[in-house]
């Protein structure tokens, strides 16, 4: 058993990050996917996670969304523990009720969109605000229409997902996540399932978000050019650890570690 007293029950001080991974470990049986990960993301920062498949990069996002439980360490969001809760002055594993409350500040977009197929675009966007936040329908509709306009999907608001292209579905999915007004947005390979010609629609929306909003964002992507353009910081994952991280210019322009160099040149060769 891990000694939980080493973890504070709450982060305090002047520089509390929006997200903090503290010695986070994740394993499936004997396979360790993430090994004692430490990572801070500041408010308003856009952090991109890159790395070869199986390096644990998607797991980072899934843990933050509480889709995966963690085996060690603690994740904090906005200074408060996400994966754990305080009990008699120490942290214990969070129960379902606590998790539900804690994860409300996080939104996520998926590789395969995961739109609800039996709801129209606008119904998808209104579902969370009405059913979870308890917003009146009119207000949720107004908010959803605003967001669908922002992602350029207002014309298709009454279409079911099956009638939309992949790029269109992903834009609706972004609007749906934003409708919950999250503090942290997670983008998990949101362009990987798309045809090349529609990738631009989705990256365009994300660019707009970065330019116009002060959202904290974590993104896993294979689009190196895109990552370079919009990230404040890039983390290169290798075998469950951050092998190297830094500003995009330095990581892409002048990688220090051999693994990073190998990965980047392999990606470049494949392009």
């Amino acid at each position: 058993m891990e000694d939980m007293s080493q973890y504070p029950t709450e982060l305090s001080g002047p520089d509390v990050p929006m997200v903090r991974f503290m010695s986070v470990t994740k394993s499936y049986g004997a396979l360790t996917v993430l090994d004692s990960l430490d990572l801070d993301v500041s408010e308003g920062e856009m952090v991109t996670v890159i790395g070869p498949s199986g390096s644990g990069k998607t797991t980072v996002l899934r843990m933050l969304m509480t889709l995966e439980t963690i085996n060690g360490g603690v994740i904090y969001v906005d200074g408060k523990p996400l994966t754990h809760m305080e009990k008699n002055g120490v942290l214990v594993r969070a129960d379902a009720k606590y998790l539900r409350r804690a994860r409300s500040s996080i939104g996520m977009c998926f590789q395969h969109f995961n739109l609800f197929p039996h709801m129209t675009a606008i119904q998808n966007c209104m579902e969370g605000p009405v059913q979870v936040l308890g917003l009146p329908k009119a207000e949720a509709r107004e908010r959803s229409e605003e967001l669908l306009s922002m992602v350029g999907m207002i014309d298709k608001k009454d279409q079911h997902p099956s009638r939309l292209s992949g790029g269109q579905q992903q834009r609706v999915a972004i609007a749906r996540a934003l409708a919950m007004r999250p503090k942290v947005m997670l983008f998990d390979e949101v362009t990987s399932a798309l045809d090349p010609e529609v990738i631009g629609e989705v990256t365009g929306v994300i660019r707009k978000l970065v330019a116009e909003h002060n959202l904290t964002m974590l993104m896993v992507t294979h689009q190196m050019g895109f990552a370079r353009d919009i990230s404040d910081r890039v983390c290169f994952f290798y075998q469950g650890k951050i092998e190297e991280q830094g500003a995009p210019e330095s990581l892409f322009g002048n990688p220090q570690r051999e693994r990073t160099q190998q990965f980047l040149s392999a990606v470049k060769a494949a392009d």
Partner: protein
Amino acid sequence: MFDWRWDFAFEILPRLLQATLNTLAAAGVGYGIAVVLGLVFALAQRTPSRIVTMVVRECVEFIRSTPLVLQIFFVFFVGPQFGIRLSPWVAGMIAIGLHYSAYLSEVYRGGLDSVPKGQWEACTALNLSTTKTYFRVIIPQALPPSLAGMGNYLVGIFKDTPMLSVIGVAELMQAANAIGGSTYRYLEPYTMVGIIFLAISLPAAGMIKLFEAWVRKKLGMN
């Protein structure tokens, strides 16, 4: 045809049609029980508790692998042994409803399993509660793939109602048996019962297919 007496056939027709209404009522009530109880059985197999899952699973298997006619006798006769007297109708509805709930729970289970994992994850990401996740997202999607199975079992329960005659529920088979017993003519009543069953179950199967297509369209799925 051989020895077929039309006058007799017409004489007993009203009585058989009357009994058909009872058959339809029995099928309807039994199915209603099965639809609800089946969902309970299916959801009970998805609780975090392994023991609950195992026990429910075994109960479903037990109900599914033993004869309905035996279950009907069991429900009807076991009550009085412990001082509970059930009317044939009540016993019959319990037995047939319970029997088909086991089948429907398997249909629902297949439907629930067919909903992609990503849908559950999207619900987590939107922070929907478990109840809302089921009733607003998962069940509506599990329904269309379940409809074919549900429809088959609606026709199935209808075709199994003749077994209720063994405890004296006044449905079609019972009426035919009574007519045969009092007139010693079996050709007309049994043949007519067969034709009535065909005349209902064949169009019903077709209508269920249309209904299934309509629901899919209504939910905007393919």
